[in-house]
């Protein structure tokens, strides 16, 4: 089971690539499998590919849930 952490798209790069931020960590990922992504959108990333676009409200909720989980786990 692979947990889906929503990442914030910060910059669209050439060749279907984008910069995303997840908890302050910046990564370059591929947007080749999703449509209509813009800076400010949240995406679910798996092994370097954005798989789905997530509604920002849902993304915030999920991130809050993960934060809660991180606290419980630590």
């Amino acid at each position: 089971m692979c947990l889906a952490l929503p990442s914030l798209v910060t910059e669209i790069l050439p060749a279907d690539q984008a910069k995303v931020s997840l908890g302050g960590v910046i990564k370059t990922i591929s947007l080749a499998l999703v449509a209509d992504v813009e800076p400010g959108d949240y995406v679910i990333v798996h092994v370097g590919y954005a798989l789905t676009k997530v509604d920002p409200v849902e993304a915030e909720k999920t991130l809050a849930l993960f934060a809660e989980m991180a606290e419980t786990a630590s």
Partner: protein
Amino acid sequence: MFPEARLDVTLRVEAGRVAGVNIHSNRLVQASKLFAGRRPDEVTHLLPTLFALCGTAQVLAGLAAMERASGISTSSSQTPARQMLLLAETVTEHGLGLARDWPPLVGAEPDLAAARRLKLAMAAVRPALYPAGDWTRPGGGEVRPSLDALGKAVNEARAAVADILSADAEAVLADPDSFHLWHRSGNRPAARLIDEIMAPDLATFGRGPFLPMPEQGPAGLDARLDGDRDGAYLARPDSHGRVFETGPLARMSWHPAVTAQMGAFGAGLLARMVARLAELASSLQEMDQLVHALSDAPAPAACLVDGAGLGLVEAARGLLAHRVELESGRVKRYQILAPTEWNFHPEGPLARGLMGAPAGPELERRATLLALALDPCVACRVTVENADA
């Protein structure tokens, strides 16, 4: 925040053979603990947003567990609609494997255009079945199938798969000659990879004792999960000491193309790759047939009552089990057992297939291929430690 989940497979080589297989996972198998105290409908709403690859299967397993716990039997219209949702995810996952993950293994670029085409086609299935978006509702949502949109989605997916393979998936697997002609043609990376793996030492690689997951799941699973207070079973499941293989090979061993490869080369690398291909083809076929079994159904008034229930779903990667305990309208306990925990168990099919494998410059690549054939839901890295060196 969490580091990206990963599997690390370390092979210890002694006297020219793999003498030890260590599989380390940093996956959070107990994440579902967070569901305790929440409303059941809140949990099924959360599930698809929490899991990147198998969101649909997660919801369907959750619904099955909750409905079982409450003694709700869903209407006959829900069954084909839910099966259709599940197949759309299986087709997407297998297709992405073939289009995106297989080409780099033969030095080719991923076929992202076809992967995206397939993914978008299958994403149209959910709204075409449950236009109100209430498919995660315990008891079942309002099924109002658009047969036209579903037919188009399946046709589009079939065309995308034909593009990935350079031939119709069913036609490729129709008989041994067609299969042979297809992989010999080397027209697409998927064909080239299969052609390479047809070499006997690769085809048989990873052949260990084959213990397929029983169709209804392991006997006594509910009790094992119930008794798992510390989460040890969720991390390392077994059934009377046996660790089953789950996923395409366990499910598709009836398919003539799979039977043929298993007969010739055993349950190794080739059989597992062909099983995935066969499941992709048969899932598309099943979707075609299911379109005719769909009918309108209102969302029933379902009332969840206290109880415990186990829900099982055959997800793309294998058996997914959810167990829930409901009390006073809330989730008291929630457990998820995912297929990767069986296939990548320290004594599971990957480990069994790698033990005793001959060492050599090709070992790391072969082990990586085997891991990919067993299709973990997180990234997997193989390292070889040579005690002989």
